[in-house]
């Protein structure tokens, strides 16, 4: 099914069309953000939200809820959604694999294992120290999965990477389970952020991780042009002057930073990194420069929507956002696999 609505004739027109779409996305994000603050076990009227920000009144319980609970949760949702979306774009671009996703390829499992080991052996529990282990775990897992997926002739095709990721996931999560079952104290600390939840957001946990996320975004934007060239194939990319080692290394660092901080903040959340690039590509095309911005906007939209859905479906409890993402992302993954024809994989 192809869209043939195309009144755009010049690159200038294309740019304006894209800017218009970005503005629509941004306003969509604003609405979703507002909804994320207003909706919940206790519905808070919009007027109160504005007042809470500009005229904070400690005695008003609504204001307290907004400032202490909902706003940090919103900020965390924005950061995690944007990180996962951008990381997904980077991964799918560098591996030329439409099925790449931090959860599916085992990166989240690596981060989880590293964090659990840190909690267990080093008795750490603060975010700023755990995040380094999340980085180490994500980086190691990405190297491992690429190493296994690239074995044999033909390199790392999407199928091989997906299968290697599934095997890595199984192995790493089983080790995590083994440790958690035997170490009750570790389990108590770890349970705080597993299953991918935005529920325990506090400013104290977000603030130390912010610089790493910003650094990850900066690197991603910096290598966007190189990745554009690489998406034509490694040979063509090299002949266009891309420095291969630098591009690969910087992508690895950016993905590690983004995925590591998002796992450290909200636990392992899968499927966001998978579907955001596809939606972004459908709207903005394969050029990475607008695509990265689009992913940074679409990611929070999808993640916050999943979070809102998780909060309203079963009041007063909630479904963790990671579970909602898996429930919605699973069918989307299947749909993507069905759409891809043999030759394109």
């Amino acid at each position, binding site marked *: 099914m192809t869209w043939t609505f195309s009144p755009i004739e010049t690159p200038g027109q294309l740019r304006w069309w894209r800017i218009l779409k970005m503005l629509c996305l941004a306003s969509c994000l604003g609405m979703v953000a507002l909804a994320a603050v207003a909706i919940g076990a206790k519905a808070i009227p919009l007027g109160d939200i504005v007042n809470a920000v500009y005229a904070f009144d400690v005695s008003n319980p609504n204001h307290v809820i907004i400032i202490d609970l909902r706003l940090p949760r919103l900020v965390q949702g924005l950061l995690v959604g944007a990180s996962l979306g951008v990381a997904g774009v980077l991964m799918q671009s560098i591996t030329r694999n439409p099925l790449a996703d931090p959860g599916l390829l085992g990166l989240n499992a690596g981060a989880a294992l590293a964090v659990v080991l840190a909690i267990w052996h080093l008795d750490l529990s603060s975010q700023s120290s755990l995040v380094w282990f999340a980085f180490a775990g994500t980086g190691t897992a990405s190297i491992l999965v690429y190493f*296994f997926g690239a074995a*044999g*002739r033909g390199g790392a095709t999407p199928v091989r990477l997906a*299968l290697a990721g599934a095997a890595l996931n199984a192995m790493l999560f089983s080790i995590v389970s083994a440790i958690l079952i035997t170490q009750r104290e570790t389990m108590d600390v770890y349970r705080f952020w597993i299953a991918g939840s935005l529920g325990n957001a506090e400013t104290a946990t977000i603030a130390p991780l912010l610089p790493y996320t910003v650094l990850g975004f900066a690197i991603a934007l910096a290598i966007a042009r190189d990745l554009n060239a690489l998406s034509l194939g490694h040979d063509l990319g090299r002949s266009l002057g891309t420095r291969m080692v630098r591009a690969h290394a910087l992508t690895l660092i950016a993905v590690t930073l983004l995925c590591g901080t998002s796992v450290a903040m909200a636990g392992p959340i899968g499927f966001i990194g998978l579907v955001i690039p596809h939606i972004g590509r459908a709207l903005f095309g394969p050029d990475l420069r607008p695509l990265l911005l689009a992913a940074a906007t679409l990611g929070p939209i999808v993640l916050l929507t999943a979070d809102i859905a998780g909060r309203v479906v079963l009041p007063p409890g909630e479904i963790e956002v990671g579970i909602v993402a898996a429930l919605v992302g699973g069918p989307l993954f299947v749909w993507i696999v069905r759409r891809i024809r043999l030759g394109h994989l």
Partner: protein
Amino acid sequence: MVSHGAKAPFSVWRLGPISLRFEQRALVAAVGLTFGLLLVSLLSLSAGSYPMNALEALKSALGVGDQAHDFIVHQIRLPRLLTGVLAGAAFGVSGAIFQSLARNALASPDVLGFNAGCSLGAVAAIVFISTDVLTVTLGAVLGGVIAAALVFGLAWQNGIAPFRLILIGIGIGAMLYASVDFLLTRTDIYRAGQAIEWLIGSLNARNWGHVERTSIGLVLLLPIALSLQYGLNRLALGDDLATGLGLSINRLRLLACLVGVLLVALAVSVVGPIAFVAFVAGPIARRIAATSSAALGTSALVGAIVLTAADIAGRVALPETDLPAGVFTAILGAPYLLWLLSTQFRKGIL
């Protein structure tokens, strides 16, 4: 019967008007594996936090040991061992069936998400209906059938390409496991921290009731499964050849899938979604028996041995705690999967 210098692939026994043809290597393998299973069983009876040597365990198993040992063996270890053996056999046969149907060693019920479906059905039954044995088993069966229908149905695009089947299985499996995780948050065992043990599969606290369930199920299903061996061998020759040999391939496929899913559902409802037993049993059995056929009987034995060995490892690995068997099957099975992937990649199969 044996030509000079060549290894006879098969022998023929004749007794009057009856003649029986079998492969020597397969028979040797079966006998060897049975001995292996008995050995591992003895080990399982004697290992654990209350140590006893093999002779005492054997005497208790036969009913002539002393009282303290008897209690442990009869009430705890023997039912645990038998559950493990029977569930492992069910996993093994099911894995071999699906791997033979898909003609690819990667297409096993745990990779394809059937374990997840059975587990979702069982947990849903526990949460919404009751913990009654029959309900849980029926829930697991329903969950498994729905998962299989989903995966096969969604993978169907003018035929089923193995890679698409596996990828869709992974996706559906992830979705189903997330649902199980969600349902478990609604139960007491989540708060008690037992959810992880349930999700990864374990043989802890298995009693004679479990043994009864599994043996009834296996008595019904195993003969049917083993009788499929003939059809599966012919099917492996290719669709056209099999049809030419008089096989109704679609009926056979449907029956084989059904039996496979029922076996997995039986096993999962008793021990949880233990990964990789179904996956490794088939290839190991085929290698031991040096055959390219589905080797269902041998796979049953291998599956039983693997699960029992994983359980023993779980009990002796750490001094104070019992690790669930599922942990060890995953820790050992995943590297094997990675190795298998790299060899299949190198051969260009996938």
